[in-house]
């Protein structure tokens, strides 16, 4: 789905002493079928921004266009159901949204809200559960609260995938997971996205490594605006500016930058996988001064 924000602004608790401007003049465009990351320090407005993309928040200023739907100040919540089906959202700690008696029913909640019959919804729910790696059918009749933490998170994500959205908004979906769990989770979303041309996701993350690996385009936010955007190569070449905004670069990039300084030779620092980084170091050691 194509997303475009124009001079988007949002103020929490408008007209109270607690008024807080969280977004100010945001302009951005996300193409259909793309993998996008949004990075920024805590409180920079990432969550506020992405919650506009499925109409959970209505702009205070400017507009946001999602597909054919244009949302402006004053747009009514009721008109947004269609959009919410097309744009799924995985929050931080998604397992907190589980509520139904059985795993199966909980997963079917979304599709049923979007107008499917119970049978259809359950069918889609089962597909989604298998997709997130829960193949054991005896689980489906259990209460979601009997499952382990990791399984609960998978069920919650299946609950979002079951509505068959075209676009996923992932707001720090790997919070609280160990490194291995994080990779598994990200591979899951990455695999989901590759299944169809039109599918896209927006990943909000604190991990620059994830942003580099799982996104083709990165937006950097600072104090409610987009301050830098581009491919990972472009964004992570601005190490000093990123530092000013309280952000780092991927560890591999950091290593190469330091090596490059020590050896006093320019090297290609935009290598984000361990293999590429190793190759780059080997080249440096061999004294290969191929253009970079």
């Amino acid at each position, binding site marked *: 789905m194509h997303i475009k924000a124009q001079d988007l602004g949002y103020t*929490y*608790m*408008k*007209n*109270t*002493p607690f008024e807080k401007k969280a977004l100010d003049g945001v302009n951005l465009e996300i193409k259909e079928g793309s993998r996008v990351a949004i990075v920024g320090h805590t409180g920079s407005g990432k969550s506020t921004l992405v*919650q506009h993309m*499925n109409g*959970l928040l209505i702009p205070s200023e400017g507009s946001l266009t999602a597909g054919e739907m244009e949302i402006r100040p004053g747009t009514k*919540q*009721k008109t947004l*159901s269609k959009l*919410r*089906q097309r744009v*799924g*959202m995985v*929050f931080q700690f*998604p397992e*907190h*949204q*589980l*509520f*139904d008696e059985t795993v199966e029913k909980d997963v079917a*909640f*979304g599709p049923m*809200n*979007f107008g499917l019959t119970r049978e259809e919804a359950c069918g889609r729910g089962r597909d989604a559960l298998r997709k997130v790696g829960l193949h054991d059918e005896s689980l489906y009749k259990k209460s979601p*609260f009997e499952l382990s933490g990791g399984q609960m998170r998978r069920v919650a994500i299946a*609950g*979002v995938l079951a*509505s068959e959205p075209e676009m996923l908004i992932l707001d720090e979906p790997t919070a609280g997971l160990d490194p291995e769990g994080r990779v598994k989770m990200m591979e899951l979303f990455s695999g989901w996205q590759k299944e169809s041309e039109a599918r896209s996701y927006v990943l909000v993350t604190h991990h620059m490594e994830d942003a580099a690996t799982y996104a083709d385009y990165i937006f950097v936010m600072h104090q409610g605006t987009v301050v830098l955007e581009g491919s990972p190569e472009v964004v992570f070449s601005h190490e000093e500016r990123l530092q000013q905004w309280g952000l780092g670069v991927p560890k591999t990039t950091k290593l190469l930058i330091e090596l490059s300084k020590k050896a006093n030779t320019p090297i290609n620092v935009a290598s984000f996988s361990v293999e590429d980084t190793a190759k780059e170091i080997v080249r440096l050691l061999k004294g290969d001064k191929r253009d970079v």
Partner: protein
Amino acid sequence: MFDNLIIGQYVPRESVIHRMDPRAKLVCLFLFMIVLFIGNRIIALLPGILFVAVAFWLAQIPLRFFAKGLRLIVIIITITFILHLFMTREGNVLVDIGWLTIYEGALTQASLIAVRLFLLVILASMLTLTTTPIDLTDGLETLFGPLKKIGVPAHELALTMSIALRFIPTLLGETEKIVKAQLARGASFSEGSLVKRAKALIPLLVPLLIQSFKRAEDLATAMEARGYDGSSERTKYRELTWKRSDTFMLMVTILTGVMILILRG
């Protein structure tokens, strides 16, 4: 989502009212409450109105914000007013148009109750708007302190209250998050019949309850792990200090009370 909720909120300002000792505020509110219900004529309530107006002006709470937060209460008070107006049958008939008769006594009764409630609500919400929750519970604890002798668990009550107050913002934040998560899954909380709306609350209430229980358990474990024991004599890091200005405020409240007493019929 809860933009207009002012219950339990604290608005930080540097006003005279903010700096008052919480014990003084509590005692003043309590006295005022009693005196209000002694005042049995509108004219007797005039000093009370003046008192609340001045206190409000001193507290520097933004009027528009305050008014918005009181909207629901104003509606409730209006309903009470109307009910009293039609139900009471005392004194001369004021209006008589067929099915509708309004008596003079009804009008005075209804206005009296409405004014009393209104003043009370304003003053009570000002207490929480100008006092941090921790000051409030400290104040309550010391005021109830003497009752420990007759077996009232003053400390435990104060602790329970401060925990409850502490978790109001957490709970609101969590509610907002779960509402959003279910809205994103196509739930709707504001459409359909009353039954349908009540049912729509299940996906919200179940997660909230489960998380509250979990949090309560965690909190209990954390307190036990640190050897918390409410029964032993606990000393305080922050102590309340009664200032001369607090005595002055108390005097003003008593004076207002005396005036109401003199003016009552």
